[in-house]
Every structure is written in C-alpha cells, then in structure tokens.
C-alpha cells in the first residue's frame, strides 16, 4: 500500500508519495549521521557534537576544529555522498530503461569507458585542469553506451545478453586503461591508479564543485522525466500506445544516466556496484514508481558510499581502504545473487 497526498490548485496537480518522502528523509538523516561520524574520525579525532558545532560555525573547544572539519574533511564526505547518489541514480534509470534488474553503469561497462577516457587524459595530458576530466569521462561513457545500444538493445534482447555484452565492452575498456597505465609516466600513473580503484581519498572542495552542476542538471532532468520512465518500464509498445515519444524519452533518460555515471567516475574513479545495489534497496523500500524510486535510490547510494568510506577508514586503521573496494566486496556477491535469481526465473 502506498499512501499519497496530492497538491491540487487550479490546473496544477502534483502527487506526493508520502511513504517515499518518509523513506528519503530517513535515508538522508542516516547519511547525515554517517557524514558527521566520517568527519570526526582521523589522525585527529573529533567528537560528533564538536563536529556538528564546527559544521554550524559555532565555537568549539579547539579553534583548529573549524578548519579541520570544514576545509579538510567535510568535502571528502560530501564527495562520497554525491558520488554515491550519482551512481545510484544512473543505475536506477538504466534498470528502468532496460527493464533489467542487473543493469548498472559499472556492470555494463559505462564506468570503465568513463575511466578509460579520464585516465587517458590524466596520463597523456597531465597539465589539463581537473574541470576537464568530467567532460572527458562523459565522452568515454557515451561511447560505451552507444556501442551497447547498437549491439545489445535492438529488438527484445534478453537481460543476460545485455549484461554479457556490457561486461565484454567493459573488459576491453579496462584492458586499454591498463595499457595507458603501463606506458604512462610514473607520477601520473600512480595518481591514476589510486583514482581507478574508486576512492574519495584527499578530495577537496576543488573536486566537489565541478561535480555539483552535473548532478544538479542531470539529476533534476531525470526526476522531471520520472513519469515517462514509469511508462517506459511497461515496454516499448505499451509506452508508445500511451503516447510516449519512446525514442526521444529513452534517449534523454539514457543521456542522464550516462552523464551521472561519468560525473561520478570523473570525481572518484570506479566505485563498484553502487549503481547496482542502491536501486534495489530503494525499490524494496518505496516500490517501482520512479517519482519515489529515483530520490530514494540517490539517497541510498549516497548513504552507501559514505558508510563504505567510513568503514574503509576505520576498520583497517591505520591502513586506509578505498571505498570502492568496500562497495565491491559487498556488491559483487549481491550481483551474483541477482544473476542466480534471474537465471532461475528464465
């Protein structure tokens, strides 16, 4: 049962899924707690109340806190959240478009394509500014999505076929990335390597700012198209019969998905399986309607990466584990479970 309220005034009528709203609020609250804990840990531990005070600009016992919290540590936690949200949105859109619960940008090779383009830029042209990495990653992601579309999307291709071709394309992109790394200069290569494992280590406001406009633009575009995505999940024929401009809407939504994944990869490398897991969590919580599913997926994805980065920093201290390794450790078995279930259903 999904309860909803409707705002109606004049010709305006907008439904609000109350349950989804509550779930999103809950997930955002949990993420906030995660961010506060995340900011508190480190070589110089700060208690959660002090973190909150520093975040709000109130006075704390130590004047270094303000700088440590707001300048050094907060951007990393925020980047983790935003990267997770972007990957999750991308995955939720892709799963809806393909009507395939296994689809996710990291699985069908979109992240690998973005990674290849970004590494190429880092290794070949080390002097380019960081702001150029997202557009480059975007080009790589679009190239993979286009190839995938041509090879695996036409007609009613089976879910497994799409995944297999995607995995293949991803493997090629990864191999090319390895070649780039092998022949690159050691300095750029080590930078690229850390980044490739999927890490928000050392991310500052400088990396956060270029991510924001992409997220805001394509995230809200996707949300505005949730209605069309809902119709598309009923299949092309039903959607066309309902009056959806199928090719146009699919193109726009695919663009959103690819752009969001690319922005995330450009910022934090390939943080694995978030785009796969978060939409499933969200669907469990709010159901398959994208008006509620997309925000819930974004919040789940953000929470996942914040939590993964927190675990990566705390659990193996003094070593630090990149968040991408943590998400993959959880996500890979989950993917196998989904594969198993989907093979069972066929």
């Amino acid at each position: 049962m999904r309860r909803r309220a409707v705002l109606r005034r004049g010709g305006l009528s907008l439904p609000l899924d109350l349950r989804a709203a509550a779930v999103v609020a809950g997930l955002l609250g949990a993420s906030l707690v995660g961010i506060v804990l995340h900011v508190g840990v480190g070589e110089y531990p700060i208690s959660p109340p002090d973190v909150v005070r520093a975040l709000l600009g109130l006075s704390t016992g130590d004047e270094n806190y303000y700088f440590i919290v707001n300048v050094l540590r907060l951007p990393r936690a925020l980047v983790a959240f935003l990267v997770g949200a972007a990957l999750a949105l991308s995955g939720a859109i892709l799963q809806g478009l393909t009507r395939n619960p296994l689809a996710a940008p990291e699985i069908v090779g979109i992240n690998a394509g973005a990674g290849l383009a970004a590494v190429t830029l880092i290794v070949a042209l080390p002097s380019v500014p960081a702001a150029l990495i997202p557009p480059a990653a975007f080009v790589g992601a679009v190239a993979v999505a286009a190839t995938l579309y041509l090879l695996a999307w036409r007609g009613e291709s089976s879910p497994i076929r799409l995944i297999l071709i995607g995995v293949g394309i991803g493997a090629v992109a990864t191999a090319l990335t390895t070649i780039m790394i092998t022949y690159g200069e050691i300095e750029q290569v080590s930078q690229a390597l850390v980044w490739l494992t999927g890490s928000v280590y050392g991310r500052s406001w400088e990396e956060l700012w270029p991510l924001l406009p992409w997220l805001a633009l394509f995230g809200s575009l996707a949300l505005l198209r949730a209605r069309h995505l809902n119709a598309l999940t009923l299949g092309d024929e039903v959607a066309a019969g309902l009056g959806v401009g199928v090719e146009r809407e699919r193109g726009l939504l695919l663009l959103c998905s690819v752009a969001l994944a690319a922005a995330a990869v450009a910022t934090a490398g390939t943080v694995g399986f978030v785009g796969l897991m978060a939409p499933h969590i969200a669907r469990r919580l709010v159901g398959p309607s994208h008006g509620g599913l997309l925000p819930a997926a974004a919040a789940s994805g953000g929470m996942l990466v914040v939590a993964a980065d927190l675990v990566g920093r705390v659990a193996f201290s003094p070593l630090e584990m990149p968040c991408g390794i943590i998400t993959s450790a959880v996500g890979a078995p989950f993917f196998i479970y989904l594969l198993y279930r989907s093979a069972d259903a066929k």
Partner: protein
Amino acid sequence: MKDLGRLMGKVEAPPEPAKLRAEGLTLGYDDTTVIERLAVEVPPGRITSVVGPNGCGKSTLLRALARLMRPRGGSVYLDGKEIFSLPTREVARRLGILPQSPEAPEGLTVRELAAQGRYPHQSWLSQWSASDERAVEEALRKTVMLGLADRPLDTLSGGQRQRAWISMALAQETETLLLDEPTTFLDMAHQLEVLQLLGRLNSEEGRTVVMVLHDLNNAARYSHHMIALHGGGVYAAGTPEEVVTPELLRDVFHVEADIVADPRTGLPLCVPYGLRRHPSGGEEG
C-alpha cells in the same frame, strides 16, 4: 461529471466514435513483408475480431492500426485523417492498445498500473488531477479490481493480471480499444470473464473494440464483425455468419470442420474433425 468537464474544456474525446480504417496497407519487418495492400474498416461502436493462424500478421495489423509502426505503403486513417499526421498525444487519447502478453516491472501494484493509463491526459503540471483519480477508480471498478488494487501484479493469477492490464487501457478513456489476444493463457471461465467485460464496455458505453482472438467460437459469439487474415491480406470480413465457413477453416486454418448453429444463440459454431486433406501435401503461404 462529464458535462462539467466539458464546460471546463477538459473532455477532449469527440462524442462520436472514431472511424478507423486502413487502405493499401503494406507492413513488414526488415526484409520480410507480412501484410500487403490490405484494406480494412473497423465499424465504429462495434466489436471486431481479427482471426487467422499464428504468424499471419494479426499483431502486426493491430500495431499499425494503433500507430505503433509505420506502414511501408498505404495509410491508416482515424476519422479520415492520416494517423501519422495526428499528434501522438491525441492518438493516445482516442486509441488504447493492449499488446500481446505485456510485462510489468516487479512490485508494481494494480492501481499503479491502472494509473499509467492516464499518461496521455497528464502533463508536467497536472500529474494527478481529480479526473485522473476518478478515471482510475472507474476502471478498477469496471474490471472488478478494486479489491485487489493494492496488490503487486506478480502476486495475481493470469486472469486477474489480464483484468489489471485492461483497467490500464480503460483508465486511458479512449473510445476505441485494441487488444491483442486478451484471452490467451486464460482458462475458460476467465476467458469468458474478459470477453463479457469487453461486451459490456461496448454495449453500455458504446466503445469500439478490436481484438485478436484465437478461438473462433468465442470470436463469433462476442463480436459483431470479424476480419480473417490470410496470405498477407483479408480473406473475409463481415458478420460471424459470413466469415465463419467451412471454406475459411479449410483455406485459412488448414482444418476440415463442420459449421453448426449454436443451439442457444444461432451463431456459427465450428467443430473441426480433421486436418485439411492436401492433394499436393505442400504448404502454402
């Protein structure tokens, strides 16, 4: 309710049932032609069944009538206007189509599915108006799905699921409904349930219904008009009595059958007794 809506300029559907017809229609996929220079007319306000053997192009014809595919030749006309010259949204408000065995995403509830039928009536600013809500409730009531409205589709029986899809098509409030094999995979009682529902929609609301049916006896019983497809064209079209003949069964369905009058309704009933005796033994288109 309806008059109020009209005063407010909310009811776009024309009061007269639309006339749907095709002329010189040629349809195909890639390098195959399925239908060639076919002409059909759908009588407005009546129930039409399209019959023919597997793969003869029934679904293809329905797709073309619903503007889901572009003809290679000829045109489909809705009220005299070439259907591709009309805005997508307008077509979707006047023609509803239910494809053969559609699939819903996991977890989607009956009510959520029915609400999708409102798509062509909605816009970004008007996503859930009072008339949307009313149309969905009506559709669920007519299909007797109100009691199951909050159940996910994947927990329902085949018959209930089919009724849920029909409620989506009803919520679309189109005066013409095209349904591709709405009774396939249903047991006899559920088949009759769906056919009776379509019969009521036609007799009580005057909706035009076009459906693809496999069972000739059901088609004869529940439709006013029948179109039999064969070899890429129309083999016969007319009343059930005119269409359901031993020749049709022999030429189109490749069976020998007796046609008797249904003792209850007087409508033709076919009783097959063997496969067509073929002198050459070969198959034809």
